[in-house]
């Protein structure tokens, strides 16, 4: 070998220390570095987007965690009470008079402006108090009512005082009145429990997620009750019993294709088949749950089949060996062992279903409903459709409430996915 180089046969010897080679190595290392940097930048971009998303949601959403309340003393003026029908008394005027009396420097002309400080709920609270206790007539009581949306924003410092007065939703004199109330210690900012305890409303300060949460619960319950047994049944049959033939192949292709059909097409299916052809009620969580079940089915089937596949053949053979029938093998031994995997897949499927919006919009679950549904057959919204409705509402108070609703939705998703991961880590066996 040594003389081969001397006679000139074979490759020329390379001088690894030459300038040319050094430049080449530097170039290659630089391009290596560049690729690394571009890759890091790509991941960084994705994380940046995730961070901006979360920060913007939290930054706007935390404003909805509190709600400005105003404490006022109102007098049930006998002159304004409707004796025949107390529910129809002039509560607006009573509120107005009480406000004028309590805000220093306010005159009767400012009554309307002052009334605007309070939420529309104030008069209904007054009415309900009176109906519950008719002896209130002529007496003065203290009410703690939500402030209306513009004043809530003002109190949270979200209204820019630099904006010209005519472009501002609260005028200078109104800011002064509100300041006077605040100076008397009448303005508080307690935790916004309305957000979870009341249903939808046209007024941001009164709007809550109770209807949407109930609707989503009913829809997910329906979805679970339908897709879990059907999905497991289908997966067990296809994995354990189905003969290998054209029909089984066709079913499999079908399931895989269904998993990739756009969600809005499932909405069209629900609208045409469930609502139009079968005449099921519109906007009902039950119908929403049926559509979601059809969408979740492929996820559950695929996860269940993977879980069944992971159970080793020795288990089946042992059970068969001691005389179990094929169904006994599956139902007594394989399915219980596969259960953690099946449940994990189901929970992940349900979490996906919880976030689905478009199919629910098409079957009318964007209805404006001010009460939580009593049954799965009553009109309702769901959490994601409620987010869509609020995001579309022009009132500024809904911006923070939309973010808050999204945080609630994401909270549920984290909870469900966390449960799925916990189940997988705790119960999944490695064979």
């Amino acid at each position: 070998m040594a003389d081969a180089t001397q006679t000139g046969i074979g490759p020329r010897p390379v001088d690894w220390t030459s300038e040319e080679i050094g430049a080449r190595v530097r170039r290659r290392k630089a391009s290596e570095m560049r690729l690394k940097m571009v890759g890091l930048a790509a991941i960084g971009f994705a994380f940046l987007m995730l961070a901006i998303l979360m920060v913007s949601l939290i930054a706007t959403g935390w404003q909805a965690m509190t709600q400005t309340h105003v404490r006022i003393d109102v007098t049930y003026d006998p002159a304004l009470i409707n004796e025949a029908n107390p529910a129809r008394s002039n509560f607006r005027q009573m509120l107005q008079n009480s406000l004028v009396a309590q805000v220093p420097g306010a005159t009767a002309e400012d009554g309307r402006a002052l009334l605007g400080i309070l939420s529309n709920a104030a008069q209904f609270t007054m009415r309900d108090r009176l109906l519950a206790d008719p002896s209130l007539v002529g007496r003065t009581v203290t009410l703690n009512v939500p402030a209306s949306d513009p004043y809530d924003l003002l109190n949270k410092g979200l209204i820019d005082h630099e904006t010209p007065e005519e472009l501002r939703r609260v005028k200078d004199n109104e800011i002064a009145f509100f300041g006077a109330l605040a100076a008397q210690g009448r303005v508080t900012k307690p935790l916004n429990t309305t957000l979870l305890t009341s249903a939808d409303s046209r007024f941001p300060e009164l709007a809550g997620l109770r209807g949407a949460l109930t609707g989503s619960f009913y829809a997910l319950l329906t979805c679970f009750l339908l897709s879990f047994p059907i999905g497991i049944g289908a997966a067990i049959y296809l994995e354990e019993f189905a003969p290998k033939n054209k029909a089984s192949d066709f079913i499999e292709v079908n399931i895989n294709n269904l998993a990739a059909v756009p969600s809005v097409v499932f909405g069209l299916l629900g609208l045409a088949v469930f609502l139009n052809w079968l005449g099921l009620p519109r906007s009902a969580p039950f119908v929403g749950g049926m559509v979601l079940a059809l969408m979740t089915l492929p996820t559950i089937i695929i996860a269940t089949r993977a879980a069944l596949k992971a159970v080793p053949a020795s288990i089946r053979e042992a059970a068969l060996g001691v005389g179990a029938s094929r169904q006994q093998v599956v139902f007594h031994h394989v399915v219980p062992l596969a259960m953690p995997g099946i449940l994990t897949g189901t929970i992940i499927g349900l979490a996906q279903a919880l976030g689905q919006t478009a199919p629910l919009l098409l079957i009318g679950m964007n209805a404006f409903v001010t009460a939580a549904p009593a049954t799965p057959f009553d009109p309702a919204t769901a959490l994601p459709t409620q987010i869509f409705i609020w995001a579309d509402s022009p009132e500024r108070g809904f911006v923070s409430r939309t973010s808050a609703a999204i945080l609630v939705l994401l909270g549920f998703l984290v909870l469900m996915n966390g449960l799925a991961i916990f189940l997988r880590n705790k119960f999944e066996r490695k064979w």
Partner: protein
Amino acid sequence: MFPQAADWVRSMTTFAFALLFLASVAGYLLNLRAARQLQGSGARLHSLAGFHGGFSFLVVLVPGFIVLILWLLLQGAVINALVLRSLPPGTTDGLDPGAVQLIVAEIRQIAGGRIFGTPEQWKIDAAARLTALRDTSATLMVVVVGVMSAVLLILSRMRVSPDFRARQGTEAIVNGLMIFCSTVAIFTTIGIIASLVVETWRFFGMVPWYDFLFGLRWEPQMPIRADQIAAVGAFGWVPVFVGTLVITVVAMTVAVPVGLFSAIYLNEFASPRFRAVAKPLLEILAGVPTVVYGFFAVLVIAPALRDFGVWSGLPIASNTALAAGSVTGVMLIPFISSFADDTLSAVPRALRDGALALGATRGETVITVLFPAAIPGIVGGILLAVSRAIGETMIVVMAAGLIAKLTINPLDSVTTVTVQIVTLLIGDTAFDSPKTLAAFALGLMLFVVTLGINVLALRIVRKYREIYD
């Protein structure tokens, strides 16, 4: 008087289900006890006692359940037909099906206790008849289920004997149930295709198909007389489809480079610890519901782009395709990156080792060896992502435009197929107007296009897998 009637129907329905379930449990217990008694008297049973019980449980439950579901699904149509037939002669003569539907809807409203204005007396009478029919139907349902359960209970109880092959019977029923479960997927596909094709067919009865496929104008909201629609050609889907493509291209411009380069980094350069943190974090992006991305686009991205337009002097529309498209792209990053990551990992170890042994750097190995080998799989993954971008709904509904404009300028506002479907169908939908049916025609096109891309993508991916298997 009417709302109570609804309560009656509701309680009867609940009662029917409860009755059926109790009868099934009773069947289980009866047969179980009978089989145990036989065993106790020294008989050798072919099947375990539990199978005798299970057989009776299923024999009572399954047929009753089928009858109940069919009854609930079909009673509405039957009752409607009966009510229509009982209307005073001549009321529905010469009316088109849409108008008849309206009358039925009004009668149902009245029966539900929601009376608007003062309806004619014959409508109130019809509503009363409707309520009466519903009550009768509910009562009849309970009676039928009750009788059926009783008969099946007795029949299955009579089958209990030492020779009866209860296990085979039970397993046959369970097998049948499982086969039914597997066919639900087929029924869903049939349901999708049937609903889309039928409604599209009706749509093409009002608007010629060539106007829909080749028309360059999409103005479905215009109040045009029914006989003018075809002539005006306001249902041309081309601008809507072009808008969808514009948004898809924007989305892929964001998602493909970011997704591929993060996959390359994660696959080749990242330390295991970095990978263990980065991958789940990336997956979070895929788990965020689309409605959240839509709000994000409206709240953050669109205003930022608008400000940028003002600052740079570019004519960026307020709901530019860039906003919806880029956010859709962000949503698809983890999809592409995990798909590319998997395909890169699937390239046989020998190829990688061979390249490294020849002195290639890691980067050169990826670019010149692994990447070309993985190209078919990656292309398949990108195609799947394209099909997702085309079918993506909430982001574009919230952040893209509503007006169909034939343009390929991403700074402009465009609309998409899914946006049009949702806006046409939100609110009240009458199934006899071309406006509603147009949404189904769009849905059919969407289904066909995404299905075509998916099938193509899966075929490419499968072929690629075959090379290395």
